């Protein structure tokens, strides 16, 4: 099929899809005319029942906690998938040695300062995730981003511990497994899987929300490490520095 025919086919398909969208949108309630009821109900009950001021995270880690567990495991599955796809060549291929550093001091200074700022913001998003805007997933991505920045502004030696999977894997296990264990603990204590345990505390304080706080930290650890593992796999495929222990294999 020539490119022109394909473009024509694409154009007509997009027109059709656009018409379907227009039809669907015409049938929706107008923007801002929310019909409920779930949003209204949750906004009323999550704070009194779970002492969680961030209702979005209360929804994620309690109301639909089981879904979030699945979400954590698709991330885990993705790490495994990427590892399997890229693994066969990483050990055998000899790639360029990356010793180049940014010579520009301003870039390095700002970059290093941003590593600190990024880590702080990431930890803040994680720790207060169930109180103010944020959460384990968001904080995890920001934290991993700050650590990856270390690779960009430093050199591969500074970054080595963060791409060492023997070091990272146990943390991933603690994060992903911790979530399941909290769920099983509820089951063992005679309630439903992932039911809220551990005392609710005072709303707005770090000691609040019961299981939500622990699930939040479990997913924070799992997401940070999953991101680092993904980055490490791509990094090894592209630029494997010839380190003494690798050179012989």
């Amino acid at each position, binding site marked *: 099929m020539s490119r022109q025919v394909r473009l024509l086919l694409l154009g007509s398909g997009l027109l059709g899809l656009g018409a379907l969208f227009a039809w669907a949108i015409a049938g929706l309630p107008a923007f801002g005319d929310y019909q409920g009821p779930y949003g209204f109900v949750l906004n009323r009950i999550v704070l009194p029942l779970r002492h969680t001021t961030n209702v979005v995270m209360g*929804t994620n880690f309690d109301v639909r906690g089981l879904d979030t567990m699945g*979400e954590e495991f698709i991330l885990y599955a993705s790490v495994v998938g990427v590892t399997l796809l890229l693994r066969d060549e990483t050990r055998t291929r000899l790639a360029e040695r990356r010793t180049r550093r940014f010579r520009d001091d301003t870039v390095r200074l700002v970059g290093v300062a941003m590593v600190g700022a990024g880590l702080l913001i990431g930890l803040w998003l994680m720790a207060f995730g169930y109180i103010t805007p944020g959460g384990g997933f968001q904080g995890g991505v920001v934290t991993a981003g700050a650590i990856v920045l270390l690779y960009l502004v430093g050199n591969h030696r500074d970054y080595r511990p963060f791409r060492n999977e023997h070091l990272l894997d146990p943390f991933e296990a603690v994060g992903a497994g911790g979530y399941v264990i909290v769920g099983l603990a509820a089951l063992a204590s005679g309630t439903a899987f992932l039911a809220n345990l551990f005392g609710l505390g005072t709303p707005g304080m770090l000691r609040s929300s019961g299981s939500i706080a622990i699930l939040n930290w479990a997913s924070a650890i799992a997401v940070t490490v999953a991101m680092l593992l993904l980055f490490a796999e791509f990094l090894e495929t592209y630029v494997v520095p010839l380190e003494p222990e690798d050179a012989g294999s």
Partner: protein
Amino acid sequence: MSYLPFAVAAWICLVGIAGIATSRNLIHLAICLTVTQSSSYVLLLSVGYVKHGKAPIFIGTKLGTTAVDPVVQALTLTDIVVSVVVIALILALALDAHRLSGTVDPDQITDIAG
């Protein structure tokens, strides 16, 4: 104007699909897929918006204040995670394709063996 956010979501989706279909580079294709998926974030957040609603975070805000739907916001988070997962796998496959055929142009990758 009250349907504009939905129209924006539809537009982002269509543009993303057009980008995927006309892409000449697998990395570009992966980014276009992310654009397409972003339309679902816009749609979800628009669906959950309540007129004059505040963020569903009740710290410094009295319980009972009109707030937007937290369910769709939680779903958007799931959506973003799925997007990250998919793009990681696609980029890994793109790397593999480049290793096997020496190109990232989907039109040039002719012989695909299982």
